[in-house]
């Protein structure tokens, strides 16, 4: 095994390789978080997986976060990557505008990203360009909105046994 990879080294490598594309970085709770440009996300994930030394070859989690207040960059797609060999985790973020939240799919890199991307599409309407089957997964096909966006209600409006007045609605 080569010398252990740490977060600092990882960040350094990333900056060397994708200088322009790395927009921001921080380490909240010891987890290196890097903001990248949406267009470069696919290439970075691919490089991280294929680079033998870093070997960030495990996709832990893929999801999105909706920030309605950040104009122009409302939708954040978050990748959690994990190098099992070095036990280093990395969080990648790419911010997208709400009007056209599209980003390249990573299903060609990780097969397991398939359903997670579909779920993200289902919940937030993020379009993963090049995804083989980008349809809703958890909700009904007939649903016409993306329920996890902040503007939508959680509650079911049809129930009768609750009195909304008591719960502050």
């Amino acid at each position: 095994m080569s010398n252990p990879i740490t977060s600092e080294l990882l960040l350094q490598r990333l900056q060397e390789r994708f200088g322009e594309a790395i927009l921001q970085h921080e380490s909240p709770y010891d987890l290196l978080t890097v903001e990248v440009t949406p267009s470069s996300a696919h290439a970075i994930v691919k490089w991280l997986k294929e680079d033998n030394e870093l070997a960030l070859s495990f996709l832990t989690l893929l999801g999105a976060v909706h920030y309605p207040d950040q104009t122009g960059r409302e939708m954040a797609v978050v990748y959690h990557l994990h190098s099992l060999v070095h036990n280093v985790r990395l969080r990648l973020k790419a911010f997208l505008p709400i009007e056209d939240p599209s980003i390249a799919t990573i299903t060609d890199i990780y097969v397991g990203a398939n359903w997670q991307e579909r779920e993200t599409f289902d919940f937030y309407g993020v379009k993963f360009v090049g995804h083989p089957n980008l349809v809703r997964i958890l909700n009904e096909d007939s649903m016409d909105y993306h329920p996890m966006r902040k503007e939508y209600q959680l509650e079911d409006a049809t129930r009768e046994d609750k009195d909304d007045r008591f719960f502050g609605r």
Partner: protein
Amino acid sequence: MESLSNRKKVVSDKKMTFWESIYLPAVLGGMWITFKHLFRKHNVTKYPEETREFAPVYRGQHVLKRDEEGRENCTACGLCAVACPAEAITMVADERKKGEEHLYREEKYASMYEINMLRCIFCGLCEEACPKEAIFLTDRIVPTYFERDNFIYGKDKLVEKVDERIDISKRQLTGKRPQKS
């Protein structure tokens, strides 16, 4: 794939020995095991006739406690309703009037207190939230009904009867830090 730790151990052995491959020893062995159970005493709680002892902290049907003098503890602060993740508790607060001191302990009381037992998930958060030790979950189970409306438990079902107190002291003490005397 290289090993990620030094604790790896392969546990599944797929090679069959000759004796395993002729079926019979394992079959007979298995039958011997089940045969032994034939003579074991059954391990069944025949429910309606026998009941099993619940843990003292079991989270079953709620009770609204009265204090020693028979006054309702609840002061309708609404914390339980706020704490309820199922939003099953609704209440209406009312001011205590003159002459009602023997009924309610505090100046405010709940004139209406309802728990929707069909919504309730018996998580126990209301009990924890109550600052007045008024609501407790008990080790009684909520009965089943044919109609949905019966599950709205009002004060008539929740508040304990004056002469028929429900003992919850065990759940207050079990596993808790020793009470300062």
